[in-house]
């Protein structure tokens, strides 16, 4: 009986490790390929670790395009979106949570409807719009549509609603302005929600490929995912080692952040799911 239980336990651990391998092995393979020579990527049987470590693959990937420009653009876009979102969702969430006004329900409903409208549906009309505004192929076309977030407003409104009214009454008796109430009372209490939302927003827009692809035509405003994806379009077949080196550059920052802020990040993304 004891032996049977021991066997069951070990089988369970082995099965768990197989699951981990299914999700970790592709990443390991990406890392390993990124430091192999081109010849070694096609040897049979494949080598697990490279025989000669080709660190120069990273240099080759980096030099194949304006990567500094891509990283600067990616940073401007992801951080710019975050700042703009912060500026627009805080007052909106406060008004929706704390003021009675005509149309509160209507405008909040309108906000929630936009949650159901994916960018993959409306890129064509927005492209024409951006073209009319004359901001195609600039970072503005990548930032402005995401300058607010219905999801952020929803989360923050929930959190603002939970602050007891007595606290606000007391603050108002002390002649605190509404601005001060938001800054000194509301935001500190909503800190976990703000961190959650910031992580979610930053990772989402840092990773985005679709919107920059449809809104840019030159390297001016192109972002890192586009630059990396372009590495596969070389003449005479894909240089998998260089492509994977580029891919490591794209994945590594996010994986490092994930390693340190795993709990927060999972919460951020699962929150967006559970709503």
């Amino acid at each position, binding site marked *: 009986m004891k032996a049977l239980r021991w066997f069951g336990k070990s089988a369970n651990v082995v099965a768990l490790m197989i699951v981990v391998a299914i999700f970790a092995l592709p990443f390991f393979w990406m890392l390993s*390929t990124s430091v192999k020579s081109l010849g070694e990527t096609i040897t049979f049987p494949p080598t697990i670790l490279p025989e000669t470590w080709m660190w120069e693959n990273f240099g080759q990937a980096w030099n194949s395009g304006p990567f500094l420009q891509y990283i600067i653009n990616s940073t401007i876009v992801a951080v710019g979106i975050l700042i703009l979102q912060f500026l627009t969702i805080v007052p909106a969430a406060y008004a929706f949570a704390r003021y009675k006004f005509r149309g509160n329900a209507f405008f909040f409903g309108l906000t929630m409807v936009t949650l159901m409208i*994916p960018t993959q549906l409306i890129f064509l009309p927005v*492209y024409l719009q951006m073209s009319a505004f004359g901001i195609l192929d600039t970072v503005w076309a990548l930032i402005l*549509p995401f300058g607010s977030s219905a999801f952020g407003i929803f989360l923050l409104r929930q959190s603002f609603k939970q602050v007891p009214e007595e606290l606000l009454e007391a603050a108002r008796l002390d002649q605190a302005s509404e601005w001060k109430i938001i800054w000194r009372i509301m935001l500190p209490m909503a800190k976990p929600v703000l961190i959650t939302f910031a992580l979610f927003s930053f990772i989402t827009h840092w990773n985005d490929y*679709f919107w920059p692809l449809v809104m840019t035509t030159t390297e001016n405003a192109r972002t890192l995912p586009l630059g990396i994806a372009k590495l596969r379009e070389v003449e005479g077949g894909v240089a998998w080692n260089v492509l994977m080196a580029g891919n490591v550059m794209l*994945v590594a920052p*996010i994986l490092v952040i994930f390693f340190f802020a795993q709990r927060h990040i999972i919460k951020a993304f699962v929150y967006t*799911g559970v709503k």
Partner: protein
Amino acid sequence: MWQRLRPYVMIAPAVCIFLLFFIYPIFYMMYLSFFDWNFVSPDKDFVGVSNFTTLAGDEEFRQVFRNSLIYMAAVVALTISLSLLLALWLNQKARIYGFVQGAVFSPHIISLVSVALLWMWLMDTDHGLLNWVLGLFGLPKVDWLTSPDMALWSLILVAVWKGLGFNALVFIAGLQSIPPDMYEAAALDESGPVRTFFKITLPMLSPTLFFLTVINMIGSFQVFESISIMTQGGPINSTNTLVYYIYEYGFRFFKIGYASAAGVILLVMLAILTIAYFKLMERKVHYR
């Protein structure tokens, strides 16, 4: 005066962005779907519903529509069933389970571009790791991305791999919200594990199940990156789906009206799913 205006001023920036970049484009797209326009020429030709009738009669579009439905159904069925099993298994306190949860979740935060490039390499017919592993078991090579019968399923595999962890964690959150006394009561009734699952776990999990089913359906209709990077809709149109089709007709062939009409069809699909979801949830809340 200011007191009355204040809330409107506070919501104005956000609402303006939503109106300008989400609501208005929806109506503009509907409007464009009735025209024949190549983007360059100054005038648009009104053609009524002919874009829609052309789409309905076009064998290529019908295949795209079929592909979208197959992709959606397969991704949803596989993701939901596998992630539910995974959640039941991994919903435990010990440290190792937390570690496995983290590993399974990690692809969810990785750019779809990275995931697509990575799997393109794994699925390379001659030098990819997957075919090498198959070879170890004496199995023949698979043309993962180059055979019309297989390519769509390869994309489905990638989507399931990427989405599994997220879905499993949402299920785990659902499982943990089931009150433990329900299980204690079941244990007192000497209910077996299978019976307990179908009588307690599954019904209590049904809101989560509905939710995940719908968001996976909606998400599947939006697939673009993996197609654009791994297959470009090929071979012979076998992996072309709605968003990629709209993209190609808009940006490559400059048939704006035609692409918009396909966009309206996508809009209808998404709207049906969203409304169905809210109706189901409403009923759910009603019965409680």
